C-alpha cells in the first residue's frame, strides 16, 4: 500500500517530467501535430510508437499486470469524438496545459472546453446514456 505522501510526491515528479517531455517533443505545437497526423513528419509519431514499444517490453519483463478492461459501448464513439477534437484544437487532455505553460493563452479556452466535456460526460451518462463501468468515470 502506497502512502498518501509517496503518491503525492510521485504525482508531482511524474507531472513535471511528463509536462517537460511532452513539451520538448513538440506536442504543444499545432503545426508539428498536424504534420504528424498527415504523415508529413513522422518524428512525433515515432516518439509515441517507440514509447509504447519500450513500455510494452518493460511491462512484460516486469510482469506488470494487465487491466481487465472490457470493450464497452463507449469506447468507439468516445475515441472518434476525442480524435476529432484533438485534430481541431490540438489538445489531448495534457497538451493545453503545457500550451498555457508555454504562453499560449487561448489554450485556456481549450481547457475550459475539456472541463465542460468531462463534466457533461458524467452528467449525460447518469441521465441518458446509462453506460456501465469504464465510461465517464463510472
Amino acid at each position, binding site marked *: 500500500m502506497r502512502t498518501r505522501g509517496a503518491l503525492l510526491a510521485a504525482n508531482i515528479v511524474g507531472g513535471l517530467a511528463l509536462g517537460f517531455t511532452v513539451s520538448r517533443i513538440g506536442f504543444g505545437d499545432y503545426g508539428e*501535430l498536424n504534420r504528424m*497526423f498527415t504523415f508529413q513528419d513522422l*518524428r512525433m509519431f515515432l516518439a509515441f510508437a517507440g514509447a509504447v514499444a519500450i513500455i510494452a517490453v518493460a511491462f512484460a519483463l516486469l510482469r506488470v499486470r494487465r487491466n481487465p478492461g472490457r470493450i464497452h459501448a463507449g469506447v468507439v464513439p468516445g475515441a472518434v469524438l476525442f480524435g476529432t477534437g484533438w485534430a481541431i*484544437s490540438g489538445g489531448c487532455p495534457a497538451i493545453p496545459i503545457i500550451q498555457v505553460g508555454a504562453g499560449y493563452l487561448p489554450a485556456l479556452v481549450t481547457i475550459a*472546453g475539456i472541463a465542460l*466535456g*468531462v463534466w457533461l460526460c458524467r452528467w449525460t451518462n447518469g441521465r441518458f446514456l446509462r453506460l456501465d463501468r469504464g465510461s465517464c468515470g463510472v
Partner: protein
Amino acid sequence: MTYWPWWAGAVGLALVTIAFTLATDRTLGVSGAWERVLHWREERNRERVEARFTDDRALADLLAAATAEEFGTRHPAPGTPGADLPVGPPVEEAPRAPKRPAPVVTQAALLVSILVGGWLAAVVSGQFELRLDMGAAFSEIVTDNPVTMVLALFAGGIMVGFGTRLAGGCSSGHGLSGCGRLNPVSLLATAVFFGTAVVVSFLLWKVI
C-alpha cells in the same frame, strides 16, 4: 524551433510512464485526473466513506481476533451441543476489491505539475512567449479569425473532454499505459482516436 529527436522522445515518455507505474502501482492517466479533480466534491465524499469502511473492517478484524483469543478457534469436541451440525464448505475468499484511485489531491498535483513542467520546458528552450494566438500553423490550417479560433478551441475541447471520458482514457491512459499493457480495449481506442485524428487533420489541411 528545435524539438527532441524521436528516440529521445520515445525514451522520455517511456521512462515517465514506467517509473510512474512502478512508484504508484497505478495507471498514469491525465483524462482520469481531470475527471476526478473536476468532481472533487463527490470524490472527497467517496474517499471519506471508504476511509470509514476500512475503519469498520479493521474494527471487525480486531473483534474477531479478540474473540478467538478469549474462546479459542477449535471446533467443539464431539458430544457437545451443536458439534454434529454439518459444517459448510469453507467460505471462499472475497474477490480482491478493485484498486482505489489515488487521492484526488494527488491528481490535482499531477495537473499542476504538468503545467510547471511545460513552463520549464518552454523557458529552458527559449520558447516561452505570452501570446494571444495558437501559432502560425493553427492560423493557416484552422482559422486566423480570433472569434472562430476561440469557438474551435472550445468545441474541440468539449469533444476531447467528453470523448476521452466516454472511451475511458486518452493518449496517456489508453495510448501509453494501456497499449503498453496490450489491453485490447486500449489498442482499439488508440487505433480509433488516432485514425479519426488522421482523417480530420487531412480534411483541415487539404479541404477546409
